């Protein structure tokens, strides 16, 4: 099987799951919007991150237990699988970020026109199109890191079983903590001002940290995958 075919196979399988997930999420959000407008609760729904983060993390966890196992048994080497997984991860992160951005933008545009209030504050669309684009980039990074973290935990469990697998969850905490912290732009800027007053460094700093974390996770996942024993 050619590498691009494998990437596409991998990606389309994930997209199939994502379609189900986002379909359900959209229906739930519509339901909650109606409920929030009628009964006045759910005044600040977190539709953007928490739910999709959990979904992304689960997909990442399945990388080894499902995809590595499945593809290896169909004659794909670990190295080829790893490359395909990495490309598919990048593609999925971008596509999911795009879908998330489009869904939120549509919601924030259509819902007020129907006479309803959007049940969350910090509207994505209220700060102009540049902010929408920046949010799309943020979501892409965010998804990518969470997929890599899920992959890291999953390969730890797959390779070393549950006892040492638990250690990989603990090792993931700093990555999750930093990722969550980097989402809070005001908090990041406030912290970075301790070190520098340069506004450019303050604005690109989080992305640099993201990139360093991504590099650490990619190298770790590769080293754990390249000679991983395959389970029966």
């Amino acid at each position, binding site marked *: 099987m050619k590498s691009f075919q494998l990437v596409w196979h991998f990606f389309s399988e994930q997209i199939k799951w994502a379609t189900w997930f986002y379909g359900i999420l959209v229906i739930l959000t519509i339901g909650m919007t109606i409920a929030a407008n009628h009964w006045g609760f759910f005044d600040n729904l977190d539709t953007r991150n928490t739910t999709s983060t959990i979904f992304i993390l689960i997909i990442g966890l399945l990388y080894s237990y499902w995809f590595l196992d499945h593809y290896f048994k169909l*004659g794909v080497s670990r190295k080829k699988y790893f490359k395909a997984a990495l490309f598919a991860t990048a593609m999925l992160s971008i596509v999911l970020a795009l879908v998330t951005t489009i869904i939120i933008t549509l919601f924030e545009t259509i819902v007020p026109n129907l006479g309803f209030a959007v049940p969350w504050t910090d509207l994505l669309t209220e700060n102009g199109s540049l902010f929408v684009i920046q949010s799309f980039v943020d979501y892409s990074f965010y998804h990518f890191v969470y997929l890599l973290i899920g992959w890291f935990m999953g390969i730890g469990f797959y390779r070393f079983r549950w006892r040492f697998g638990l250690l990989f969850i603990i090792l993931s905490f700093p990555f999750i903590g930093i990722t969550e912290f980097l989402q809070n732009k005001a908090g990041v800027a406030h912290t970075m001002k301790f070190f520098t007053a340069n506004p450019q460094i303050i604005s690109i700093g989080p992305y640099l940290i993201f990139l360093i974390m991504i590099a650490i996770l990619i190298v770790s996942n590769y080293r754990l995958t390249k000679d991983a024993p*395959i389970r029966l």
Partner: protein
Amino acid sequence: MSYSIEVSDLTVYYKNFKALDQLNFKLSPGKVHGILGRNGAGKTTLLMYLASFHKAKHGTIVIDGEDPFENERIIQGTSFIYEKDNTYHYDKIDKIIKSIHYFRPHFDEAYARDLAKRFKIPMKKSVDQLSRGQSSALQITIGLASRTPLTIFDEAYLGMDAPARELFYKEILLEQERYPRTILFSTHLVSEMEYLFDEVLIIDNGKVLLQETNEQLLEKGHSITGPKENVEAFTKTLKVIHEEMLGRTKSVMVYGHLPEQEQRKAVELGLEIGTLSINNLFIHLTREGEEA
């Protein structure tokens, strides 16, 4: 197209337990090899190493002249068929059969569909909805139709009824004639499958107990029956693997070459000489030390 296999000093530990102990053997290409052994003898461990599921730490494995671990050509050309847990496999059979050719370049989809029909595998069902026997039949269908140069069946028939197993055995012979490949069979149904084997490798307690061609093995197994004293005198220098008494008549099974001269001598002593099946040899060779 078929792969040869050469294993040298392969030793595998599971923590402190030595699962394989300095295995050395060669398997010739294009043949059906029976890999036999008692429960826990190390068959599945060996097959997993041959299929590159694990990296050999002690000893070497060479398949078709190359180290198979992370070797894309060898991995793509190796199928390992065993009883899989399909609880969470929701794909439809039809979709699976359609997609295999992406991974296995020699996959024959028409043959797979024909086999699936003959095994009565419902194409519209998803894998998790199949019975145990149907699931095994699906794995076998994919294994046969993939036509990989090395095809490993590890107790692949579990749950399949007798007619389905019979069909599987017939297909093995037909396929081997059409597209010869190296086939490894690990099985406990020795009596049912022994006619399929070109060569037999018996593993016992992680070690190679014997490796022979089917013919050599059959030539080396004999039953000798007759009066107790004569049987005992005749078999004094032979390797007796099993013995039974019925009144004054004794019947023994021996393993080893019995020249024609010796056989004539046995007849002169009034002894009856018969051949042993691979199943009988396997049972009694691997029970040495256990016999009452």
